[in-house]
């Protein structure tokens, strides 16, 4: 066991798989010599050489489009897109080809591509560096979209992503890249993609969150407990496929559901979770399911971000409102 940050945990997973599988190659902008702007790939080029870990030209469509070409011809490329807001030039390749080649070729070719990028706000960044586009990707048939919230999960989920025969969008909550340190095994282990995790049992209300919002929810839950409210916290971990079973079981028990996420509220993962709640637990509900999410606005720059980003006391406020409904 070692104490790891999420950056270290993902680096460790990549290291293990690079060592184990020579079909894995890693590239993107600044990932080689520099080890990525967040240092997730630090040291890997030195260890595995420039043919396996390298800097590509600055063109996201090219990074993802070439990865598909590598994948159909036997490699397992892992590409880094530098920021959430810079994934969009690659959107056409992801939607039109990466997500579809398996279906289009009737299984003759697959796309074992891992597309990883840091996402989310709270880091006082420039425009295009604070976004949460998980719903955009989750809406595309053919992709799997996953988001870890801890170093331990990040490592196990990355190992699974690197062994998946389907294309994986691996979103990394940059705000907690180094903020959380946790013990994780040094050896290889994997966690199933597509499974949520009940982090804390409770009986009054189910709170579903993922990524950096888990930590904020845990702070809110401490406040709720002081107020005598018992909260069940679910870390969704996989956006698609979504773990309907875990949501159903929890909401049928608590009768209340709140989604906490950074993305814009409308047409979001929150919307999907409310739909699932209605489909699976309609007759068990004690209060309307709620979305505690970002506005349908551009994420404000640093000075205005305090209005947008979801704080623990705001989560507590919504928990209390829902329980008292």
């Amino acid at each position: 066991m070692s104490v790891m940050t999420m950056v270290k945990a993902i680096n460790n997973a990549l290291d293990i798989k690079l060592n184990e599988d020579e079909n894995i190659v890693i590239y993107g902008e600044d990932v080689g010599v520099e080890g990525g702007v967040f240092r997730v790939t630090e040291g890997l080029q030195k260890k595995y050489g420039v043919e396996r870990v390298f800097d590509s030209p600055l063109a996201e469509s090219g990074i993802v489009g070439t990865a598909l070409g590598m994948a159909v011809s036997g490699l397992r490329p892992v590409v880094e897109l530098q920021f959430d807001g810079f994934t969009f030039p690659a959107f056409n390749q992801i939607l039109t080809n990466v997500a579809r080649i398996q279906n289009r070729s009737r299984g003759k070719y697959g796309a074992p591509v891992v597309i990883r990028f840091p996402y989310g706000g709270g880091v006082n960044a420039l425009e295009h560096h604070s976004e949460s586009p998980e719903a955009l990707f989750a809406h595309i048939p053919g992709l799997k979209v996953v988001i870890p919230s801890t170093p331990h999960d990040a490592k196990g989920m990355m190992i699974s992503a690197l062994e998946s025969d389907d294309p994986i969008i691996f979103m990394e909550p940059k705000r907690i890249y180094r903020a959380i340190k946790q013990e994780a095994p040094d050896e290889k282990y994997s966690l199933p993609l597509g499974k949520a995790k009940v982090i804390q049992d409770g009986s009054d209300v189910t709170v579903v969150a993922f990524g950096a919002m888990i930590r904020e929810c845990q702070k809110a839950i401490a406040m709720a407990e002081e107020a005598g409210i018992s909260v069940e916290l679910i870390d969704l971990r996989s956006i698609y496929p979504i773990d309907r079973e875990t949501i159903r079981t929890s909401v049928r028990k608590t009768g209340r559901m709140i989604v906490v996420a950074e993305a814009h509220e409308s047409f979001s993962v929150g919307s999907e979770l409310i739909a699932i709640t209605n489909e699976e637990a309609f007759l068990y509900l004690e209060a309307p399911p709620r979305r505690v999410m970002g506005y349908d606005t551009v994420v404000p720059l640093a000075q205005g971000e305090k209005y947008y980003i979801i704080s623990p006391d705001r989560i507590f406020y919504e928990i209390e409102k829902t329980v008292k409904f």
Partner: protein
Amino acid sequence: MTQEDLPAIFRDFNPLEDKMLQIIDREGNLIRKDLMPELEDETIIEAYRQMLYERTADEMAVSYQRQGRMYTFTPNLGQEAIHIAAGMNIRHEDWLVPSFREMGILLSKGGTMKEMFLFYLGNEWGGSFQQAHHTLPISISIGTQFHHATGVGYSVKYRKKDEAVFTFIGDGGTSEGDFSEALNFAGVWQVPVIFTIQNNQYAISVPVQKQTNSLNLAVKSVAFGIPGIKVDGNDFFAMYLAYKTAAAYARSGRGAVLIEALTYRLGAHTTSDDPSKYREKEEEQLWAMSDPLIRLKRYMQDAGIWSINEKQLREEYREEIDRQFTEAEKEKSYPLDDVFVHMYSDMPDELRRQKKAYEQFLSWKEKRG
């Protein structure tokens, strides 16, 4: 890339000077004997047969669509020399990353007309050409395939394989960002990819003059540091020489090549398109005089190697192609499973749930009668 490393044709037909490689002229006269590829008479006859096969299949496909027996089709008429010249230079282990107007080379790779028809009858099993080795499915999204070819090229280089990658785009596709990005990546990575622009003068209705202010399309290679050449795409021998040279260059590890094949789409963009809306009959007639089949036939006649009974051969082809179409028509069944099972390597629960809901509806419908 230094000038000395370049094969002679890339130096002698410099796109910056707007030169074009041509070996037989529009009348089929041999004008560059020094460049004529050394081909057996039988090979030339075979080339003509393959071009005639593609032409016949193409005409029949349009006709099936007109009869209402097939949904759509993208005609290849007039572009056969490019496809067959490429097809005769692509090997079993080489990769084909197609667009959607390269029927001849898909057949060379082991694709069948039955599959082609099945695709245009609306079935993915057709466009994926299951038996065609190292061949990607037909790609409709303009230009995106250039990146896939570059990525395949990286794999080939990474694994030190003796394979080349052939990929195609139209003149309109050169305006897409992916075109330039892919050539840039291919230049930096020095991958064995032969990029072909089939410049057939039109992107649906938009003429190439509205796509670019460049002197020609081959010249775009210069900016990316890869060799480029403009070739008369209706001259089988010029195309053959270009592919032979490009494939040898790519396989030698020196990197990618861009070929602009100057041609003309004698047919419509698809069977839904009406070219009379955007181009003059006179222009079509002028290009019809440069028909690649007629040019090759005239050359063969002049060289005394014309031995083909064209009428009889066409009849044989028609029968065989019609048999394939009938087979494709018969296979026009599409099980519900095919909608769902190929999306992921293991079907997610959400898809199982959606499929089950539809099956429950079906059984309700059946009971209801």
